[in-house]
């Protein structure tokens, strides 16, 4: 049997799905870890990005954050954080993944506010709105397409990166691949490929679903901006 046939057999075995530590368990872990990490990333990155964009300062900082995180290997953070006060287990993995969600979220929040029409901003000021009100009522709504694009990039990246949590026994679908490698190629080839199909399929599925959501939340006149935002978000990150 070649590895692909082995993989099909492995995926067709109901036991591999339902057993504790099987596909369904791992899928649940994968989605929980990713969701928590993206949430944490949003909570940290959006307020900072919006505020920096509002004040017009910190463009260099945004660039620096994305450049530095690009150079830090995911594997390093995943192994270092459990040894700090975070301890072993879910919190350390979530924080490690969230670090890689921050650059696209931060960059899009920043540019989203920066690109707001200066005339709209001036008009709002002229109407007597305070700085915080301008941010909340004018700049934030105009930044929504950018925020959505950044969210999508970050979420897909986190789902892809979460596969690496398996290196520190952090759970997730990557665990299936790692277990296959543990069996060595000849015996585990099928399981390795099956795990790869699951991980890649989930990432592509999340990408597709979020692309639809992003389209739905972007008002028609702003769709041109959305495309620019997607490119911006993608540029802020490379490598998973």
């Amino acid at each position, binding site marked *: 049997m070649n590895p692909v046939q082995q993989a099909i057999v492995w995926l067709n075995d109901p036991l591999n799905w339902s057993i504790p530590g099987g596909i369904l368990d791992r899928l649940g872990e994968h989605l929980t870890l990713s969701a928590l990490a993206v949430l944490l990333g949003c909570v940290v990155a959006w307020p900072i990005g919006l505020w920096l964009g509002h004040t017009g300062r910190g463009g260099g900082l945004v660039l620096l954050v994305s450049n530095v995180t690009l*150079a830090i290997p*995911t594997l390093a953070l995943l192994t270092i954080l*459990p040894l700090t006060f975070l301890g072993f287990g879910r919190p350390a993995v979530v924080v490690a993944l969230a670090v890689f969600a921050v650059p696209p979220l931060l960059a899009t929040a920043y540019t989203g506010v920066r690109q707001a029409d200066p005339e709209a901003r001036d008009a709002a000021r002229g109407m007597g709105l305070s700085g915080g009100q301008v941010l909340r009522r004018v700049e934030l709504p105009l930044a929504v397409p950018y925020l959505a694009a950044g969210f999508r990039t970050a979420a897909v990246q986190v789902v892809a990166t979460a596969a690496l949590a398996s290196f520190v026994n952090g759970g997730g679908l990557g665990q299936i*691949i790692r277990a296959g490698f543990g069996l060595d190629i000849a015996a585990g*080839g099928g399981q390795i490929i099956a795990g790869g199909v699951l*991980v890649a399929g989930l990432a592509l599925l999340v990408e597709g679903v979020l692309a639809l959501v992003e389209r739905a939340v972007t008002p028609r006149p702003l769709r041109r901006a959305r495309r620019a935002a997607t490119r911006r978000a993608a540029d802020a990150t490379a*490598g998973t």
Partner: protein
Amino acid sequence: MSLHLSYRAAPGNPWFSWQYVRDNSDTILAALREHTWLTARAVLIAALVALPLAVAAYWFRSLAGPILALTGVLYTVPSLALFAFLAPYLGIGAITVLTVVALYALLVIVRNALAGLNQVPPEVREAAEGMGYGRWGRLLRIELPLALPGILTGLRLATVSTVALVTVGVVVGRGGLGQLIFAGFQNNFYKAEIMTGTVLCVLLALVLDLILAAVGRMLTPWLRRRSS
């Protein structure tokens, strides 16, 4: 929880240790060499494949969509999954790592090179045409030099992310500095080993980025003149 507290209390396991670096300089240098070599080869291969692809997408508009879509889909596929697809066929070793990281670098270079080429002003293109340049002459003498900043940005991004990505190669036993990081984790959480691998990784990315930035400055003297 108790486990890490006991490790924190233990004075024998610091994050940074010259002792470790001195005692294991051979292993560390071998890992660094492997990492640098894998990165350099991967980026070179990716560039050699990516530039013709970018030019093809630039010349034939109908190709741009599919090429960008394909590289985009590839980019969505997690690195560990790509290892999973290739390892059963390419085996455990450097070839698999090289293929995976080169595929990711490919996308970054294609996208930036295409953006660079598309930025060439139409007037310039028409002027070159008027001066009798053919398609190839125009590409080599005018369009590629003008697209150089974009191409170099792509190369720099690709290099930095490749350095980080190579570490995932530990899954097939060839992760360069990732090997140190992972071995440190498995070896009773040997912090100095993990940290040395990490710091060298970031430094390597920084050094390679600076080298490429310097090369870019040398290759595009006209940009410097304009700004000064």
